[in-house]
């Protein structure tokens, strides 16, 4: 009976994926999973138990997609067959859809690993079904608070789910106290990764810091330095909680034209040089998370570093387009930390003037509450606004975006409100500046990308990658 249900669920899901793609209604990453789970609720646990070597789950606020793709890249290059929920479909339906799409009833397609990026809120449900051998946690920042309540509750959700697990190993960001605490509070075996002090660290904390207080005793944490946001070297004056000594530590990070480089020290006292074709400190963290995970899975350190060099950013995440010989960058934004990183990269962009478009939607997937825009440091843009010809604000909340920029100190003469994506894209491309940068929330990203690809060619040469944030 169970087998019959699994069979029907798989056939239905595959048929739906086929139909959805045929009708051009998207990639079929969620609905087929939801129907398949209704037909056979045991689908995920049944299919995930077929994965031979183990399931790896990546969760946290930012960097899930990138980290997960990097892990999959290393494992695949090492000769493993890897199942992945590649499209960023990271709720339970998306995970079900990935299994239903990739596996068949007779189990003739065997996978060595499954790499799953999982939304924090969906983590307990997914993790209890897939029983991961390894859970990677990137960081905790504020994200879509109206859906999860508060950050503390999100972390408690993940922590309680982890406590139920046995034998699962954790890969934790040593530099984020909100993540690192999970090693002790869950009692699970943990591997830590982090970045050592370097010339770019700051002594002062930023405004959008999440955690000031010790998760164990409530004292204010003392920091020696910050990497960004609450990431850094911390210790509690009230108890013995402090930044764990990382098992995998990046040292002397250096930015090249389109890549980031560092030395990686790992426990045995060995070191390798790591180079990833992405940009920004937070992508270095993603790379270190992926590197630490694959070492934990007994990958050869030299080989893993070599495979990581061949990583390419995922489609739809910070892509470079070419419009009449000028670069256009498209970047997903979804929370203050990620938005600040995007702004930082935009300000650093070398060369001439810029046109900027910001598209803000407030559907469920974007977060219905857009208050978080006020936690983003748009004031940095005001300081260099002479370089920016125009800010085109678009999406359902175009007016609110313009309002935010006005109070950041941007002259209203530079602000254009154009709710319609077609009009907005055509306006920003027609702006005549040397470079164009488009920042969009989740549900705005896809329509904007579609419109943009009608005007501009996708540029695959990795010349000057902006950060892709997720």
């Amino acid at each position, binding site marked *: 009976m169970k087998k019959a249900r699994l069979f029907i669920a798989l056939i239905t899901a595959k048929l739906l994926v086929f139909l959805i793609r045929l009708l051009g209604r998207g990639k079929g990453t969620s609905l087929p999973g939801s129907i398949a789970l209704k037909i056979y609720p045991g689908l995920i646990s049944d299919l995930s138990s077929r994965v031979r070597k183990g399931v790896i789950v990546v969760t946290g606020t930012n960097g899930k997609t990138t980290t997960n793709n990097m892990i999959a890249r290393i494992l695949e290059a090492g000769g493993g067959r890897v199942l992945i929920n590649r499209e960023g479909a990271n709720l339970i339906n998306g995970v079900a859809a990935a299994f239903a799409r990739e596996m068949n009833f007779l189990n003739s397609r065997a996978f060595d690993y499954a790499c799953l990026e999982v939304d924090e809120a969906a983590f307990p449900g997914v993790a209890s079904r897939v029983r991961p051998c390894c859970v990677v946690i990137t960081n905790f920042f504020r994200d879509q*608070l109206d859906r999860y*309540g508060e950050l503390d509750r999100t972390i408690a959700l993940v922590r309680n789910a982890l406590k139920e697990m046995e034998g699962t190993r954790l890969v934790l960001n040593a530099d984020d106290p909100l993540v690192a605490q999970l090693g002790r509070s869950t009692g699970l075996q943990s591997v830590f990764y982090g970045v050592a002090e370097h010339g770019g660290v700051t002594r002062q904390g930023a405004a959008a*810091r999440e955690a000031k207080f010790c998760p164990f005793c409530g004292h204010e944490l003392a920091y020696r330095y910050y990497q960004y946001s609450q990431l850094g070297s911390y210790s509690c004056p009230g108890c013995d909680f402090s930044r764990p000594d990382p098992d995998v530590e990046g040292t002397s990070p250096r930015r090249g034209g389109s890549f980031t480089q560092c030395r990686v020290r790992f426990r045995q006292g060995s070191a390798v040089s790591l180079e990833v074709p992405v940009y920004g400190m937070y992508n270095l963290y993603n790379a270190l998370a992926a590197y630490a995970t694959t070492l934990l899975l007994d990958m050869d350190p030299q080989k893993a570093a070599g495979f990581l060099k061949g990583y390419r950013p995922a489609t739809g995440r910070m892509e470079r387009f070419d419009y009449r010989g000028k670069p256009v960058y498209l970047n997903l934004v979804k929370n203050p930390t990620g938005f600040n990183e995007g702004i930082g990269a935009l300000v650093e962009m070398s060369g001439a003037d810029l046109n900027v478009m910001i598209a803000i939607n407030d559907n469920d997937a974007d977060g*219905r509450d857009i208050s978080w825009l006020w936690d983003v440091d748009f004031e940095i843009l005001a300081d260099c606004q002479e370089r920016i010809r125009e800010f085109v604000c678009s999406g359902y909340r175009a007016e609110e975006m313009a*309002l935010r920029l006005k*109070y950041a100190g941007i002259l209203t003469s530079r602000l254009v*409100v154009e709710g319609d994506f077609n009009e907005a894209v055509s306006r920003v491309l027609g702006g005549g500046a040397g470079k164009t940068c488009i920042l969009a929330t989740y549900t705005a990203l896809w329509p904007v990308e579609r419109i943009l690809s009608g005007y501009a060619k996708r540029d695959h040469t990795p010349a000057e990658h902006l950060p892709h944030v997720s």
Partner: protein
Amino acid sequence: MPRGITPRLNICHMYPDLLNLYGDRGNIMAYRMRCLWREIEVAIHQVNIGDSVDFDRMDFIFLGGGSDREQSLMAADLAEKAGALEQAIEGGVPVLAICGGYQLLGKYYKTLTGDIIPGLGILDLYTDGGETRLIGNVAVEVELGGIRQTITGFENHSGRTCLGKLDPLGKVMAGHGNNGRDGMEGARYKNVICSYLHGPLLPKNPFVTDYLIACAVKRKWSIPLKPLDDSIEMSANSVMLKRLLGP
């Protein structure tokens, strides 16, 4: 205003390190910018745990909301300053309290398990914990300083607040408001405005900001506030009202 004197207002931002949820710092940004655009100088005093503060010297006090843990840290510190804060409020210092800050000014917060967390007891109101969170966009009809407008914002709270002998800030046109039952949102007492609205409240609703600035200015000088161009603010407001209340 006497010639040669630059008016200067002292803004007190309570616990910015702790109470920094939901973009509430936007309230300080809006207050400051709307002063600067009128050539009124502002000095922002950030008060964190353990800092001392002279509330009587302040022209505007802002108290936001935080997550549960940070809120309880803040409450313990503010309890020591309660007397001085009450005196300032009675003396007419303008105050904006949002969400957790609003609840804290009242008598108590009663949790679902029946525990009573005492508030500062400055305002005649109390809050009961609720099983569900009240979340979503809100429209509230408000009358302040003789102007009637429908303000917008976003609420996200599990506490249900009931007012004693206090006026509400306004009448809920869409959303839940104080408790989801009596159709009221927020509270007013002297120059204190309390509200559950994030969004944040002041940038989205400039007439509330101007009311608070005018209250502060009136206590020192007799100058009218220069009107500003609020077309972006008004269009953001009308988009949301159209969505919530229909055309």
